[in-house]
């Protein structure tokens, strides 16, 4: 295992941070709205392309981040209000509808940006690397790691320390009861689905800068997100974080040890967890 050094450990952690950002949105929507948004990967890719174009056009990375989050949140709103409202309550029809949305979005992205590989431009301040503990590591990746932690803390505070968070948590447990208390749960749902989508957009721009953007990137992110939610349990922030760490680290170990079968490695923990806890580590019925 000498090959698995500090650099690879950091690579795994930064991938986990990105995956957490994307999967936390996925798990929030799944947990509260009971909608498995299979378009989440496509939203990630779309957000990444928007971030790429805006960053390229304005030369401002932050503007690219904000634009991708806003645009993808709007897209999420549009899908929810324009399409999903017609099939509410039919779980399978909802899921399959979002799958259709994923196909359309991917093809639109292919139409607009073509099949080339793009990389979001990293701002000058985050270029280059840092030297510590005897290694030289890219600054940007450390930034991603920090951002992942920041998003976790922010979401944790939002869920546990604010009124909206209390409503979301109550809604995850029993949406009907919350409604009976005189609260417009639909508005909470809407806020959550926009928040979840914007996290996918954020992930797209962040990830687009170091994983690059290409037409099948959405599928890869979607598999990771699915694995994370299956491992962590739906609607659980801590579950998403643990799942992301597991998947991120295992994927990196897999890439070091069996480069061609790296994908297969995330299969192991998923299977083990399904065998013992079908609802995921932190999932509740």
């Amino acid at each position, binding site marked *: 295992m000498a090959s698995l050094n500090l650099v690879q450990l950091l690579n795994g952690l930064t991938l986990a941070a990105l995956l957490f950002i994307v999967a936390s949105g996925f798990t929030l929507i799944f947990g509260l709205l009971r909608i498995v948004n299979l378009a989440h990967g496509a939203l990630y890719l779309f957000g990444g392309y928007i971030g790429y174009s805006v960053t390229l056009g304005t030369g401002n990375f932050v503007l690219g981040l904000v634009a991708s989050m806003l645009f993808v949140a709007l897209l999420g709103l549009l899908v929810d209000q324009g399409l999903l409202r017609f099939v509410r309550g039919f779980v399978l029809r909802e899921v399959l509808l979002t799958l259709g949305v994923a*196909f359309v979005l991917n093809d639109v992205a292919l139409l607009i940006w073509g099949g080339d590989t793009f990389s979001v431009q990293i701002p000058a301040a985050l270029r280059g690397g840092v030297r510590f503990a005897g290694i030289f590591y890219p600054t940007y990746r450390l930034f991603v790691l920090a951002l992942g932690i920041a998003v976790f803390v922010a979401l944790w505070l939002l869920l546990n320390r604010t009124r909206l968070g209390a409503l979301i948590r109550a809604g995850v447990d029993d949406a009907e009861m919350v409604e009976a208390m005189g609260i417009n749960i639909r508005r909470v749902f809407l806020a959550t689905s926009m928040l979840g989508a914007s996290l996918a957009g954020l992930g797209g721009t962040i990830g687009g800068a170091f994983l690059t953007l290409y037409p099948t990137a959405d*599928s890869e992110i979607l598999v990771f997100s699915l694995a994370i939610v299956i491992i962590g349990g739906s609607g659980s922030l801590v579950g998403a974080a643990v799942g992301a760490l597991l998947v991120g680290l295992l994927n990196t170990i897999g890439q070091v040890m069996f*480069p061609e079968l790296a994908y297969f490695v995330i299969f192991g923990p998923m299977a083990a967890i399904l*065998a013992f806890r*079908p609802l995921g580590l932190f999932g509740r019925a």
Partner: protein
Amino acid sequence: MSKPVPITQRPELGFVLILVIFGALPLVLSSYQMSIANEILIFSLLAMSIDVLAGYAGRTSLGHGALFGISTYVVTYWTSVYGGSAWLGCLLGVLAATFAATMFAAFAVRVSGVYFLLLTLALGMIVWGVCLRWTSVTGGENGIRGVGRPELIAGPTAFYYATLAVVLLMTFLIWRFVRSPFGLTLRGIRDSESRMRSLGYGTSVHMFVAFVVTGCFAGVAGALYALFNNFVSPSTVQLSQSVEGLLMAIIGGIGTLFGSFIGAAAIILLENFVSAYTARWQMVLGFMFIGTMIFAPQGILGALRWLVTRRQR
């Protein structure tokens, strides 16, 4: 999508119709059109394998396209890279798909509803990821080119009739399967798993067997596709394969079996038609999926039946 649908009242009529319609097609079609008809037959089988799980066991799978593709990969690899016989290759392909289905099923029986869909989706995508990255075996993005069909079924007409025979035989087996006491138990599980379990049925074992058997059917379709297409690449195992199969089953009407032929014909004819004008087939497929989910979740036959019953009132 698990509304009870009566078993087709006159199944022998269905067999005769398929035999007559598909049997007569080579007399009137050009060779290009015949290859489309051939493709329809192969995908009907894939759609039926999905339909058995969705319509009779109440489990929507998004992993059968990957099982289909595993068989295609094995057949193509065996014949072209290894240089083995195509007949043995087909057998190995079906066995490989069945084996993969066993692995899938071991996990899938533990979950139901939307988790089943997610799990089969994730498993199928792992297959896709492996096919894409394992370049030393699968050729990666470039895929593997086949070596052509064996002498006996090399001609398009001979292969068409061979496909028809296999698909008809498989349809008969599937029909027997869902009509058997085993199939009835599956429908019981679909309607109420807890009740079946309290009646003493081993629901997990039933689901396991059902998954493996349908995986085998998907594998047969995949082996036929290997002979038909003579080429395999990650796009054969990708998600849209499962999605197309499921859409065919849904459009034909979940739980109708014979509807799969209608669904497959509708999708493949449309795909060929659309592809002649634009490269945006994925988008059309996506919109069709959205439209079907909103307007006709019971499929074409279901929507027609609904219209007819409304008029009769």
